[in-house]
């Protein structure tokens, strides 16, 4: 636990004169789940894109500890290597499952694609693994040959999660994983995510504006506003005893049923 999995230092990204996020630094340790909350437009997604290798930051560094216990600078390596890293060690769950999935091919092909992308060439093996993962995310295996367009929103999100986990990533980036789902489906999905994260010992960074998600899934929390981190700490601590005025506002604005 003494070497961090991900080390972020002074990370910033601006879009011309407009600010995306600024001066974000933190360390993520193996098995840890960090939440990022904040209102929309606060730079959460920009931060996640920078962290996950999809958007080059304008300042700062992102370093990652590979399976070979080598600390690498994500944006200093070649693009080919970065793609391999994203494919073999990372996963990315998008808010809209339709953006991440291939809607024109079957669920099995969607789950199998990351395997084929890293060079697996045994149809039977790929299919068996796809079946196992569909089962893991509670999708009936007899739907393996159905198109994702016949799936409900919750199933699509679970399919996306299966597609991400099939390559056994060590770090998963999630952007609003429960966004756009109704409350009961959200609850099931959260249970599933919680179970997977615990069972597989995943590390994760979860961006959301839903404090319930944060409370259930994450160990540590960062609160963002206007592109900067205004408060961070253990999730329960931050939520129970918010210091920054914005965090206080955020916590107090949750409806208590």
């Amino acid at each position, binding site marked *: 636990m003494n070497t961090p999995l991900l080390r972020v230092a002074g990370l910033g990204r601006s879009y011309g004169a407009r600010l995306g996020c600024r001066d974000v630094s933190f360390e993520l340790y193996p098995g840890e789940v960090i939440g990022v909350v904040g209102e929309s437009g606060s730079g959460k997604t920009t931060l996640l894109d920078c962290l996950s290798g999809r958007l080059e930051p304008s300042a700062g560094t992102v370093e990652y500890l590979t399976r070979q216990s080598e600390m690498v600078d994500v944006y200093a390596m070649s693009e080919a290597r970065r793609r391999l890293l994203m494919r073999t060690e990372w996963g990315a769950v998008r808010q809209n499952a339709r953006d991440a999935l291939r809607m024109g091919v*079957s669920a099995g092909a969607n789950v199998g694609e990351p395997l*084929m992308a890293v060079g697996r060439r045994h149809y*039977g093996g790929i*299919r068996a693994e796809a079946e196992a993962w569909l089962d893991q995310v509670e999708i009936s295996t007899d739907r393996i040959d159905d198109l994702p367009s016949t799936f409900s929103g919750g199933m699509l999100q679970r399919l996306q999660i299966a597609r991400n986990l099939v390559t056994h990533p060590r770090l998963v980036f999630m952007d609003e994983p429960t966004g756009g789902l109704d409350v009961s489906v959200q609850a099931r999905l959260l249970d599933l995510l919680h179970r997977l994260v615990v069972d597989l010992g995943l590390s994760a960074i979860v961006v959301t504006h839903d404090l319930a998600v944060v409370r259930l899934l994450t160990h540590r929390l960062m609160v963002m506003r206007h592109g900067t981190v205004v408060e961070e700490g253990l999730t329960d601590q931050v939520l129970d005893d918010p210091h920054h005025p914005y965090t206080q506002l955020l916590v107090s604005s949750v409806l208590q049923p």
Partner: protein
Amino acid sequence: MSTGYNFAYLDEQTKRMIRRGLLKAVAIPGYQVPFASREMPLPYGWGTGGIQVTAAILGPEDVLKVIDQGADDTTNAVSIRRFFARVAGVATTERTDEATIVQTRHRIPETPLAEGQILVYQVPIPEPLRWLEPRESETRKMHALADYGSMHVKLYEDIARHGAIATSYDYPVMVDGRYLMRPSPIPKFDNPKMDMNPALQLFGAGREKRLYAVPPYTPVKSLDFEDHPFTVQQWDEHCALCGSADSFLDEVITDNQGGRMFVCSDTDYCGRHRAPHDVSSAP
């Protein structure tokens, strides 16, 4: 031969530009080289790419053969052959072994090609990754990084739906272990013929403005799965005209009662199989 045109229709600068592209294509087997495709006196989709390549490499001594779906006597083949006879005055033939340049649409001749021959393909869509990724910038990057794993998704989907790889034409191949290539819509029956072929194979896509090539004796491998290896089509019938058991057969409906026959798609091959003693009379 009609006057008023430059030799082989295109002006010399254009031919030079295409030859430069072809040299680059030969140097990097399977890599798609952009070129400034010209308007040709026939519509896109009828072979504008192939005809420009042929025009660029044609010399007065060349003997040209043009086939369309294997046949020498279909509209497209006849028109293109006559076009070059008129604007270049070159000799034409229907015999594969006599030709120095064979322009083809949808087939590779059954008669094995020899060193020194050039096979020119007409290509409608050169990009094998297009169905997977609509952005040109991204497909180029995928080629640059040899990022081809996802290509198997299509084959996976075939097996999941049909129990076998059902893609039967335009079957993607790896050229020289590096570039993924679309072999134009030839049947996959012809794919093994591309592998280590002694002839030079040139591909021209007129609308998409791309050239690519497979130099002689280059390994060309069709994609497959370990447990579903690449296979070619087979027929229970033999050719009804020449009796050939190992050529690509077309099913032809012969009457309104549903009568049908299977015949070779390669007319030159079929004709010479029928009359082995009279080799001069092609059909």
